[in-house]
C-alpha cells in the first residue's frame, strides 16, 4: 500500500498533469490541417492510467472530454493489456467499441516506465472525411458500414515501426488525404509529447508517488462534485421534449424524456421514454457520447468554472458520481449495426433536458432553454483537378437567459466549443463565399427578466457545383422560457438561387444535396428562451436592445411593457418612464 501523498506534492503533481494535457492539445490543433481541428478545436487529449482512468485532459471541446476511456476499453477487446509494447500506437474509431462516433479517430500510445506498462497517452480528433457514403457528414444511411472506414483497435505502429499498409489504406479511403494524413501526423506528435512528459513526471517524482497522487486527485474531484450533488434535494426530476425527425421519415417527431434521480451524493440520468433507435445515422453511441453528455451536464451545472474560484482537476473523479441508464435499442443506446454518426443534436438536447429537469431545484445555477443543437454543415465539391474539397462548418447558436445575466448571443453552447473559420481564410482557399454572417434579427430573443440569446444567420454561396449535407435539428421544438420567461424560436434553413429565382425551406437535417452555382444556403439558428418575468427587466436594458436592433419598439411594448418615445438625438428612441410604469402595472394585473 502506497502511503498518502502530502498535500504540497499533490498540488505540484496536479499542476504538472494539467500542464501536460494543455500542451498535448496545443500541439494537436496548431499543427493540424483541417479547419475542423485547427480552428474549431474539435479534439481532446490526455493521459490515462492502466485501468483506463482519465488522469488529465486538455480543456478543448467538452464533447471529447471523457470520451477516451471508452476508446481504451473498446481497444482492449482487440489489444489486451499484455499485448502492448513500447513504441506501439493504436488507431481506433469504432462506435460500437467505445468511440464517440466514427469520424473522431483516436490515437493511443502506451506509456512504459522501467519496463512496465503504467498508462496511456491518447487523443481524439474529428476528421473531415473517412470515406462515408456522402462527403464529410452522413444522415440518411442504412447502417454503420456506410459511415466509412471502421478502424477497430489497429496497430498503426508496431514497436516503433509504422504499418505502411494501414497508412496507405487510410490515405486511399478518404476524399481528402492531404488533410487527413496531416491531421494524423499532428495527433502522433501530440501523443508522443504526452508519453515523454508522463515519463519525465515519473522520473522526477517517482512512479508510485505520481500514481498515488493521481488516485488522490481523482478522489478530490469526485468529492467536490458529490458535495454539490448532496445539496440537491433527493427526488426524481423529469423533463421532456422532441426532435424534428430522423432525416428520412419526415414529419415523424421523436420523443425525448430524461429522468434525473438524485439520491444523496449520487445521481442517475435515465433516458427511458426517449425514442427507440432510428433507421438513419441519427443515433447516439452510448459509451462515447451519451455518457459523456451526462458527465458534462453535472460538471457545468455544479462546478461552473466561471463561478468557482478553484481549478478542479479534469479527471475520472468527475464521472464517478453520475450513473447513466439508456435502454438498449433506444436512440441513446443503439444496437449494432445501426448507424450512429450524427449524434450531436441529440446529446445537446440531453444536456438541456437535464438542466430543465433540475431548474426548479437549481434556480441559481440553471439556464432557460438553450438552442441546444448543432448546425454541422459539410460543403464539398470536386475541383477541376479531380481532387475533392470538403469543408465542415459549425454554426453557433444561442443560450437561454440565466439567473443573473442574459443568455449569450451567437455562441457555442453546452457540449460544443469550437471556433468559427475566418471568412477571409475560407474565401482565399475554397469555391464558396459567405454572403451574410450576422446576429439573427428576424425573430426576437425569448423575452425575460434576463432575455435569451440572439441566434446567428449565415449564408454560404456555392461558386462551383457541389454537394451539401447538414446535420442539425430543432426547426420545430423551440427553446423554452423559464420562471415566467418567454420561449425562443426554432431554426430554419433556406435554400435560394437568385439567378434561378428559386427559394425553398429545407428540413434541419438533409444529406447529399447536390448544389448548383449560385445556390445560397442560409442557416437561421434557434434563439434562446427567457429567464424570469419580462416585466421585471430593467427598462434601460430594453431600450438598449431596441437601440442595438435586437428587438423592435413594438416588442418592447408588447412583451416587456416598456414604452419608448421618439427623440432626435441620432439614436431615435428614449424611455418614457411614466407610460412604462402605467403599462407594466396594467400588464401585471
Amino acid at each position, binding site marked *: 500500500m502506497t502511503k498518502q501523498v502530502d498535500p504540497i506534492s499533490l*498540488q505540484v503533481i496536479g499542476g504538472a498533469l494539467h500542464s501536460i494535457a494543455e500542451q498535448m492539445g496545443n500541439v494537436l490543433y*496548431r499543427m493540424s490541417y483541417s479547419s475542423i481541428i485547427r480552428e474549431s478545436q474539435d479534439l481532446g487529449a490526455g493521459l490515462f492510467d492502466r485501468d483506463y482512468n482519465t488522469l488529465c485532459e486538455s480543456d478543448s471541446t467538452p464533447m471529447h472530454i471523457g470520451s477516451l476511456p471508452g476508446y481504451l476499453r473498446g481497444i482492449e477487446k482487440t489489444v489486451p493489456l499484455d499485448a502492448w509494447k513500447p513504441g506501439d500506437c493504436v488507431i481506433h474509431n469504432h462506435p460500437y467499441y467505445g468511440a464517440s462516433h466514427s469520424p473522431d479517430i483516436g490515437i493511443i500510445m502506451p506509456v512504459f516506465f522501467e519496463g512496465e506498462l503504467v498508462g496511456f497517452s491518447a487523443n481524439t480528433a474529428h476528421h473531415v472525411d473517412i470515406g462515408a457514403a456522402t462527403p464529410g457528414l452522413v444522415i440518411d444511411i442504412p447502417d454503420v458500414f456506410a459511415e466509412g472506414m471502421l478502424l477497430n483497435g489497429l496497430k498503426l505502429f508496431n514497436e516503433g515501426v509504422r504499418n505502411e499498409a494501414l497508412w496507405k489504406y487510410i490515405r486511399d479511403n478518404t476524399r481528402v488525404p492531404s488533410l487527413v494524413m496531416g491531421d494524423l501526423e499532428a495527433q502522433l506528435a501530440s501523443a508522443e509529447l504526452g508519453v515523454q512528459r508522463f515519463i519525465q513526471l515519473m522520473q522526477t517524482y517517482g512512479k508510485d508517488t505520481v500514481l498515488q497522487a493521481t488516485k488522490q486527485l481523482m478522489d478530490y474531484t469526485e468529492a467536490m462534485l458529490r458535495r454539490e450533488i448532496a445539496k440537491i434535494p433527493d427526488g426524481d426530476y423529469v423533463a421532456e421534449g422532441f426532435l424534428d425527425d430522423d432525416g428520412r421519415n419526415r414529419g415523424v417527431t421523436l420523443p425525448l424524456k430524461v429522468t434525473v434521480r438524485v439520491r444523496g451524493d449520487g445521481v442517475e440520468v435515465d433516458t427511458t421514454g426517449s425514442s427507440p433507435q432510428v433507421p438513419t445515422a441519427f443515433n447516439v453511441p452510448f459509451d462515447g457520447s451519451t455518457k459523456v453528455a451526462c458527465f458534462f451536464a453535472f460538471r*457545468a451545472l455544479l462546478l461552473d468554472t466561471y463561478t468557482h474560484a478553484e481549478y478542479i482537476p479534469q479527471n475520472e473523479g468527475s464521472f464517478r458520481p453520475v450513473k447513466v441508464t439508456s435502454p438498449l435499442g433506444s436512440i441513446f443506446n443503439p444496437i449494432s449495426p445501426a448507424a450512429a454518426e450524427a449524434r450531436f443534436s441529440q446529446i445537446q438536447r440531453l444536456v438541456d433536458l437535464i438542466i430543465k429537469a433540475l431548474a426548479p431545484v437549481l434556480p441559481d445555477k440553471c439556464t432557460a432553454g438553450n438552442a441546444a443543437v448543432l448546425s454541422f454543415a459539410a460543403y464539398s465539391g470536386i475541383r477541376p483537378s479531380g481532387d475533392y474539397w470538403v469543408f465542415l462548418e459549425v454554426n453557433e447558436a444561442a443560450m437561454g437567459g440565466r439567473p*443573473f445575466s442574459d443568455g449569450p448571443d451567437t455562441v457555442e453552447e453546452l457540449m460544443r466549443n469550437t471556433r468559427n473559420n475566418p*471568412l477571409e*481564410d475560407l474565401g482565399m482557399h475554397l469555391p464558396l463565399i459567405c454572403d451574410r454572417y450576422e446576429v439573427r434579427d428576424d425573430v426576437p430573443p425569448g423575452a425575460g427578466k434576463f432575455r435569451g440569446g440572439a441566434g446567428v444567420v449565415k449564408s454560404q454561396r456555392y461558386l462551383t457545383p457541389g454537394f451539401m449535407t447538414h446535420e442539425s435539428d430543432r426547426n420545430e421544438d423551440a427553446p423554452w422560457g423559464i420562471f415566467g420567461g418567454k420561449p425562443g424560436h426554432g431554426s430554419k434553413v433556406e435554400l435560394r438561387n437568385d439567378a434561378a429565382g428559386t427559394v425553398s425551406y429545407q428540413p434541419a437535417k438533409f444529406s447529399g444535396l447536390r448544389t448548383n452555382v449560385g445556390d445560397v444556403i442560409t442557416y437561421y439558428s434557434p434563439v434562446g428562451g427567457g429567464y424570469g418575468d419580462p416585466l421585471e427587466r430593467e427598462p434601460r436594458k430594453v431600450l438598449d436592445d431596441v437601440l442595438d436592433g*435586437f428587438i423592435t419598439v413594438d416588442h418592447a411594448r408588447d412583451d416587456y411593457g416598456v414604452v419608448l418615445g421618439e427623440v432626435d438625438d441620432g439614436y431615435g428612441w428614449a424611455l418614457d418612464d411614466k407610460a412604462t410604469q402605467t403599462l407594466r402595472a396594467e400588464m401585471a394585473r
Partner: protein
Amino acid sequence: MIRVGVDVGGTFTDIVIERSGEGVDRQVVVTKVASTPHDQSEGVVEGILKVCGLAGIEPGDIDAVFHGTTVATNMVIERDGAEVGMITTRGFRDVLHMARHKRPHNFSLQFDLPWQSKPLVRRRNRLPVTERIMPPTGEIAVPLDEDEVKQAAELFAKRGVDAVIIAFLFSFLNNAHERRAKEIVRSILPGAFVSCSSDVVNTIREYERFSSTAMNAYIGPKVSAYLRSLEGRLRANGIDALVRIMQSNGGISTIENSCEFPIGLLLSGPAGGVIGGRWTGQNCGKGNVITIDIGGTSADISVIENGQLRIKNSRDTEVAALPVLVPMIDIDAIGAGGGSVAYLDPGGAFRVGPRSAGAVPGPACYGKGGDEPTVTDAQVVLGRMDPEHFLGGDLTIDGSLSEKAIREHIAEPLKLSVDEAALGILKIINNSMALAINANSVAKGIDPRNFTLMGFGGAGPLHSVSLAEAIFAKDVISPVHPGITAATGLLVTDLQYEYTHSTLLVLDKATDAEFKKANDALDELIARANLQLDADGISRTNRRFQQIAECRYVGQGFELRADMPEGHLGTRSAATIIDNFYNAHKQVYGHAFRDQSCEMITLRVVATVEVDTLKLPKLGKGGRTNPDEAVLYRRRTVFDDGQALETPRYRRDMLLADDRLAGPALIIQHNSTTIVPPGYVATVMDYGDILIRRT
C-alpha cells in the same frame, strides 16, 4: 548626454537617470515615487524632478525621456475608452459581436463574453454599407455606395462619437473602398480619430483585424490626450527633451506614432522588464536568459534566446480576452506574486493564488487587516525577508502576524509545523511559476538547461534559485537593481517600427508574376517604414530592415515566422524561407515535413534604428571571499530542504566585483533580498549583477 527612463507601475513609478559623454563623470541614479493613477503624467514629472535633484542635474538639461506606460492597457481592462463608430460591409455587421464564437469556459453555464457584454463598438454604432471586394484577387464585385458612407458619417456626427473605424471584408486584398470611405468620413468629422483596418493591421482574418482596429480607436483619443498632456507637463517644468514611448514589441516609438497607433502600447509596461533583463544578461555575458518579473499579484515570464527577444505568435496576442494583431514580446503573465493568498479550499486542497491580498489589506504582516497568509508571510516566517529591511525599512511589518496567519490557516488544519507550512506555500507558488516557465520554454522547444534564470521585481531574487532548480536552469542572475529593471530597460532599447501585409503565396510553386506582386507589397512596406523614419529625422545609414515571411504548410491555420533574406523574393530566397520555416516548425512542434508545400501568408518588415545604450560604471575590484566587513548580522533562515541555518546578511552596496559569497547567505539592498542557499556560491560581476551557481 542626459537620458531618463520612467516606468509606471500600479504602485510605484520608477525612474533612472544617466549622464554620459566625453569629459563627464558617468553617473547613474535611480529612485521611485508613488504612481498617480488618475493621471500617470503627474507621477512621471514628479519622479523626473526628484531624480534630477538627487543627481544634481538641471531638468532643462535632459536630452531624452523614455517612458513605459500602462495607460493604454488600463483603459482596455477598465473599459474606459472612447465611443467608437464603425462602418462595415453590408451583411457583416456583427463580426465583433460573434468574435470566434468560442466561449472562454468549457464547463460553465454562467460565463461572460466580454466582447458582447462590454463591446468596443456597440451594435447601434456598427453601420453596414453596400460594397463588396471578392477573393482571391481583390476585384470589386460591388462598388462602394458613397452616399451610404456619407449618411453613416453624418449620423455619427450627430451622435457625437469620438472615433470612427472603417472595416471592410477582404480589404487586405484591396483597400480602395476603405481609403475612400475614410476620406468621406474625415471630411464630415474632421476632429474625430478616423482609421481603417488596412491602416492599422493589413492582414487576413476579419475578426482579429476588425477588433484590433476597434481597439486602436477605442484607446486612441485618450492615449493621445495623455501623451500630449505628458509632453505639456514636461515643457511646463522646463523639460524640453525628446520623448520616446516603449512599445509592446520591445522597441521605442515617437509620440506622433504612438498617438496614431496606440494599440502598439498595450505591453508598454512589462516590455521594459524583458529588455532590461536582456541587457543585464549581456552585461554578464549571457545570451540565453529566462526572465521572471515578480510583483505583488502577478509574475511576467519571458525567454531571451541568443540575445533575441521572442515575439508572440500573432494568433496568441490578446489583451483582456480581445485579439490584438500587433507584435508583442512573448510575455506570459500568471497570477502568482508576493501577495498571493494561501488557503485550504472546501475540498481540503492546499491552494496558493491566484487570489491576491493586493496592496490593501496586503499580507498579514502588514497589519492592515489581512489575516490570510500570503507568499510574503511565508518568506518572513522562514527568515528570508527581515522586517527591518522590508522595502528598505520604509514599511513597518510584524512577523508575528505572519506566523499566526500561517499557523491558524494552514499549519494546524494540515497538522504541519509552521515552517513546513510556510515551505509548502513557497513550494506550491514556485511550482506554479515553474510550470508557467515550462509552458513558455520546454513547450516551445527551448531547453532550460542552457538558460540562465533571472528573477527581478523586488521579490524576484527571493525565488530565483528555487525556480532554477525546478526548471533545471543552468545558473541564476540577480540584477544590480532588481526593483527597477524595467526602468533601465527603457534606456537600452532601439527605435522600432513594424509593417505587415497579407500576401498569400505558395512559395514552392510561385510564378514570376506572383513573386512580383509580393515584391511590390514588400517595396511598399519598406517605403512606409522609410517615410516614418524620414519624419523622425533618422539618417538613411542608421536604418536597418528585417524581412519576415509568416508561413504555414498549405492547409494549416497557424503561421510561424521564417526569416527572409535581404532584397526581393525569388526562387532562391523562397527556398531559404522554406528551410527556415522547416526549422521553426521542427522547433515548435517537434515535427516538420519536406514533402508539403509552404504557403506564405503575411509579409512583415521590421525597421530598427540603434540608439545610445545605458552604461553602468564598473565596480571596483574586491576579489574577497565572504567579506566580513559587508556583513550586517546573522540570523536564522530556513531553506527549501528544511534546514534552519544561522545565515549572514550582506549589504549589497558594500560588495565589489569578483567578491564571492558562499551559501547560506542573504544579500540585502533597498527593496530587494537575494537568497543564496547552502550549496550555492554567489559571484559579484563587473557591473554589480550577481551570478549564483552550484558549488
